[in-house]
C-alpha cells in the first residue's frame, strides 16, 4: 500500500547546518504518526516542508500523491495545520476566523455554516465563538486552531507540538479530540512532540528524530520492547565508579549516566537489585536509592541517543535557533 505521505531523501540545510538529513519516511493512510525528538531535532522543519512553507534544499516528498514543490496548491488543499505558535487573527472573533479560513480554502458557501458550527461543537467553543480572539485563553486558541484545521475536510492534519504550554486538563481534552478525529473522521494525523507521554498515548507509530534523522521508527509498544525488559535506576555516592564496577563484574551492557543517576536496562530486574546493592557496599559505595520500573519512551530515546530528551538546560528555543544550538553542543 502506498503511503499518504512519502518523503524521498528530504533535506533542509540552513546556513550550512543540516536541519533535516535525507529523510525517508512513509505515513500510512489513517494512522496517527508522531515525530518525537528534542527541540531543534528538525521536526518542525520537516513539517514545514511537507506543508509547503519551506522549500527543501534537496530531495522531495509527496503528500496525498502531490509533490510538495511542484504541486504546492494541491498539497495545501489536502492538508490542515496547527502550528506550534498561534497563527490566528486575534482582532477577529472565533467565528470570523473560521469563516475566513473556509473562504480561503474554497469551502462551498452553502456548507460553510453547518461545517463551522460542527467544528465549534467538536472543540466545545460554541458559546465563545462570537468573542474576539484576544479574549481567549491559550488553550481555547489552540482548540479553535484545531477546529479551523478541520473545516475543509483535510486528508492529513499536521499538529506541531499541539499541547505545548497548555495545562494538564486542556492537554487531556486535546488528546481526546485527536483520538476522536482518527476514529470518527479517518483523518491521517501527523504530530510532532517532545513529550514522551503524548507520543505514547496518541500515536500508532513513532519516528524518533534527532539531528535531522529518524533513528528509530515503530509502534510505541515495539519501541519499548527493543529495550528488552526493565529499567533499574540507582542513586549512589560514587556513580562513576559504581557504573564501571557494574559493567565489569556483572557484565551489564546497557548502562547510562544521567545527571549522576545510573540507569541500567536489563531483562529481569527483580533478581538484580540485591546484587547491585551488595556490589556497591563491598566497594564502599553508599546506595541512596534504587528502584525498578517498566520502560517508557524516555528510556527508548535514551537507548537510541545516549541522552535524555530534555538534557540541555537554559531557555527554550524554537526553530532555526534551536537547531543551531543543538548543532553546537553536538
Amino acid at each position, binding site marked *: 500500500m502506498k503511503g499518504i505521505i512519502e518523503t524521498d531523501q528530504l533535506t533542509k540545510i540552513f546556513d550550512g547546518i543540516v536541519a533535516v538529513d535525507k529523510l525517508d519516511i512513509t505515513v500510512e493512510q489513517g494512522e496517527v504518526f508522531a515525530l518525537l525528538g528534542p527541540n531543534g531535532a528538525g521536526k518542525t522543519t520537516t513539517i514545514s516542508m511537507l506543508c509547503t512553507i519551506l522549500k527543501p534544499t534537496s530531495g522531495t516528498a509527496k503528500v496525498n500523491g502531490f509533490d510538495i514543490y511542484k504541486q504546492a496548491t494541491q498539497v*495545501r488543499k489536502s492538508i490542515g495545520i496547527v502550528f506550534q505558535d498561534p497563527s490566528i487573527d486575534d482582532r477577529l472573533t472565533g467565528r470570523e476566523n473560521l469563516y475566513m479560513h473556509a473562504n480561503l480554502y474554497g469551502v462551498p458557501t452553502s456548507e460553510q455554516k453547518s461545517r463551522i458550527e460542527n467544528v465549534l461543537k467538536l472543540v466545545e467553543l460554541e458559546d465563545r465563538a462570537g468573542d474576539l480572539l484576544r479574549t481567549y485563553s491559550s488553550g481555547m486558541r489552540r482548540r479553535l486552531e484545531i477546529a479551523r484545521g478541520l473545516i475543509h475536510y483535510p486528508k492529513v492534519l499536521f499538529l506541531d507540538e499541539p499541547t505545548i504550554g497548555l495545562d494538564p486538563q486542556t492537554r487531556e481534552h486535546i488528546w481526546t479530540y485527536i483520538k476522536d478525529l482518527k476514529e470518527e473522521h479517518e483523518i491521517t494525523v501527523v504530530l510532532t512532540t517532545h513529550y514522551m507521554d503524548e507520543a505514547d498515548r496518541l500515536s500508532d507509530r513513532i519516528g524518533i528524530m534527532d539531528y535531522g534523522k529518524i533513528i528509530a521508527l515503530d509502534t510505541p509498544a515495539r519501541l519499548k520492547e527493543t529495550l528488552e525488559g526493565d529499567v533499574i535506576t540507582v542513586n549512589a555516592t560514587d556513580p562513576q565508579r559504581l557504573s564501571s564496577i557494574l559493567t565489569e563484574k556483572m557484565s551489564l551492557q546497557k548502562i547510562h549516566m544521567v545527571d549522576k543517576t545510573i540507569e541500567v536496562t536489563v531483562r529481569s530486574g527483580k533478581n538484580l537489585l540485591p546484587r547491585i546493592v551488595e556490589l556497591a557496599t563491598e566497594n564502599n559505595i553508599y546506595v541512596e536509592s534504587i528502584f525498578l520500573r517498566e520502560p517508557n519512551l524516555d528510556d527508548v530515546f535514551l537507548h537510541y541517543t545516549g541522552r535524555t530528551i530534555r538534557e540541555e538546560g537554559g531557555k527554550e528555543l524554537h526553530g532555526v535557533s534551536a537547531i543551531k544550538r543543538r548543532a553546537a553542543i553536538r
Partner: protein
Amino acid sequence: MTELRGFYTLWLREVKRYLRDRVRIVSSFFQPLLWLAIFGSGIRFSGAIGELTTQQYIFPGIIGQTLLFTSMFMGISVIWDKEFGFMKEILVAPVSRVSVFLGKMFGDSTDAVIQGTIVFLLGTLLGIKLNVFIFFEVLPVMLLITFGLVSIGLTIASFIENLESFGVVQSFINLPLFFLSGALFPVRGASIPGWLELVSNFNPLTYGVDALRTIILGEAWQPLYPLYYNLFVVCCFDAVMIVIGTLAFSRRK
C-alpha cells in the same frame, strides 16, 4: 473563483481590522489637522502662492501626505502577521500568492483612502471650497495613488522581521517622498533650485499631488502636467510596484 474569494477574504480582513481600531482612526485625524491649521496658518505670513492661500495650496498636499504615510504604515500589518503567526495561515492556504498580495494590497489601500477621505472632509471645516462632485473625482485618484505606495510598504515589510527596523526604513522613504513631492511647497518655478526640480521628477507622489490639486483647486491652480499625464505616470508606478510586491510575496525560503 477560489482565487477571487481568497482575494475578497483578505481584503475584508484588512478593512475589518482597520475599522475596529478606533484609536488609529481618531488619531489619524490630528496629524493632518496640525499641518493644515498650524503649519498652514503659520506659513501664510511668508506669502501666498499665486492666487492661493497657503492653506489652500497645501490642502491637496496634506491629503497626499496622509495617503503616503498611511499606505507605508500598512506594511506593518505584514510584520504583525509574521510576529503573531497569522502569516503562516495565509501562506499555507491554497490561494495563489498573487491573490494574497492583491487582497492585502486592496484592503490596505481601502484603509488609506478612508483616511484620505477623513482629511478631505476636514478641508470643508477649514473653509476650502469642496463639493460632492469633487469628492467623487478625488476618490479614484486617491485609490490609484495608494496602490503603488501600499505596495512599497508591503514589499519592504516582506523583507523585514521586526517592527523597529520597519519604522526606521519607513521614515527613510516617507520623508523624502513627502518633501520632494510639492505637497508643502512648489517644486517647479524660477526660484526653485534645479536639483529639487530634477529629483521631484522621479517622485511618483509629485504626479499624484499635482492630480489632486488639479481636481480640488480647479481653475485657481496652474497644473504642472495635464491630468491624464499625471494619472498615466501614477498607473505605471502602480503596475511596477504591484509586480515587485507580488514577486516579493512569492518567495519561498
